[in-house]
């Protein structure tokens, strides 16, 4: 019986010590668990200021993708994209600029820095780099690519040639996109607005004179483009040669022979 009581007393002491150790352990777990959770929460809270801002900025840049894809030509100056959007049913183009810095500021993400560059390998691509730095020095970066999809080549309109060429003619053809020059240019003359080519009638080739007329001056690009191709023939023609022309985005339309109907 005595032995039994002795054992009971030792067990009680052990239980007390165990409870003490357990309580220390529980308190340690509680504090460390809370601190871990708080650290994660702080990181998430901080991230929401920066990651969400970056996402918003990227979404804003991407939202400009549709109209930029439809641009005939563009340039980038001081992180501003200036472009001519091809709009059907109008004179052909709408001159537009994208001020990302201003747009981001309006969207409430002025802490994001924007850098706009053109691609060295693809002239149809604009690279928009976004970056921001949080209070702890952590850097958040993202890159978005905008791609121009259309080719502003000076092509004949859907209606084809508007003249019959049944007699010596001076025929004015409104181009689908304006031409900057005939092609190829020479080192001495970077812009050629008059050239010669051929027309065919029966079994005879004859020289025709081609001119680019109807100038439009694009101030942002300091470029003059021409809306109309003028062909002057000295004989009637059944086949007309259309020379190569260079467009606003440097796309060159291929040479072709067109049958007169």
């Amino acid at each position: 019986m005595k032995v039994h009581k002795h054992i009971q007393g030792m067990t009680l002491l052990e239980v007390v010590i165990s409870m003490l150790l357990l309580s220390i352990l529980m308190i340690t777990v509680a504090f460390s668990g809370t601190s871990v959770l708080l650290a994660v929460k702080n990181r998430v809270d901080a991230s929401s200021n920066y990651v969400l801002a970056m996402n918003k900025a990227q979404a804003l840049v991407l939202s400009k993708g549709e109209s930029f894809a439809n641009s005939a030509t563009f340039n980038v100056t001081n992180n501003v994209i200036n472009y001519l959007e091809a709009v059907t049913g109008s004179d052909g183009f709408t001159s537009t600029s994208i001020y990302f810095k201003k747009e981001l500021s309006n969207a409430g993400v002025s802490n994001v820095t924007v850098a706009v560059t053109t691609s060295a390998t693809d002239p149809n691509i604009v690279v928009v780099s976004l970056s921001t730095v949080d209070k702890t020095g952590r850097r958040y970066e993202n890159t978005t690519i905008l791609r121009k999809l259309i080719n502003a080549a000076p092509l004949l309109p859907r209606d084809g040639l508007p003249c019959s060429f049944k007699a010596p003619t001076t025929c004015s053809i409104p181009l689908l996109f304006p031409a900057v020059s005939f092609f190829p240019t020479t080192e001495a003359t970077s812009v050629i607005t008059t050239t010669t080519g051929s027309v065919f009638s029966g079994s005879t080739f004859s020289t025709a004179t081609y001119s680019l007329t109807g100038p439009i001056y694009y101030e942002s690009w300091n470029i003059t483009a021409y809306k109309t191709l003028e062909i002057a023939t000295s004989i009637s023609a059944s086949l007309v040669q259309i020379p190569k022309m260079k467009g606003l985005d440097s796309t060159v339309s291929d040479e072709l022979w067109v049958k007169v109907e």
Partner: protein
Amino acid sequence: MNPKGLALVTVMGFILILSLLMVPLALGITQFTSSTNVVANKIGMAEARNSAVELVRYYIATSTTACTSEPISGLHEGKLAQGSLTPTISCTSSIPAFNGYAYRYWDFYVTYKPTNAASVCFTGSAVEYLPVDYTTSTVVYFTHVEDKDAEDEPHCPR
């Protein structure tokens, strides 16, 4: 107080404190997810638009049918990770050459069906240049590209 009850209250209080800490955490993660989804959808749309143009370029360049304004449908779908592209092209006019065509003018409609959003229709026009000597490749110039709601554009493939 019953010690067992005290222990239970302590545990419940601890769980409550942890839960309160978890609420903003969960909210933050939800915000991240929805924000990332918006960006992912927009990136998916941009990639789909680029792919649609390339798909149409291929079908125009390889088309051998006469220019009749009839829509050419039943073309193979383009499969992307974020959805599918169903194209229809139609040759609306042409300019004759000595033999055949010099230019063919095309309209195109591509329905983009993303896996988790409403369908979008990419529409536009293109001009195909057919070389006289038939030895060089045809060239397809895109002259217009536009995004439309697939429901609003009757020509878009369903």
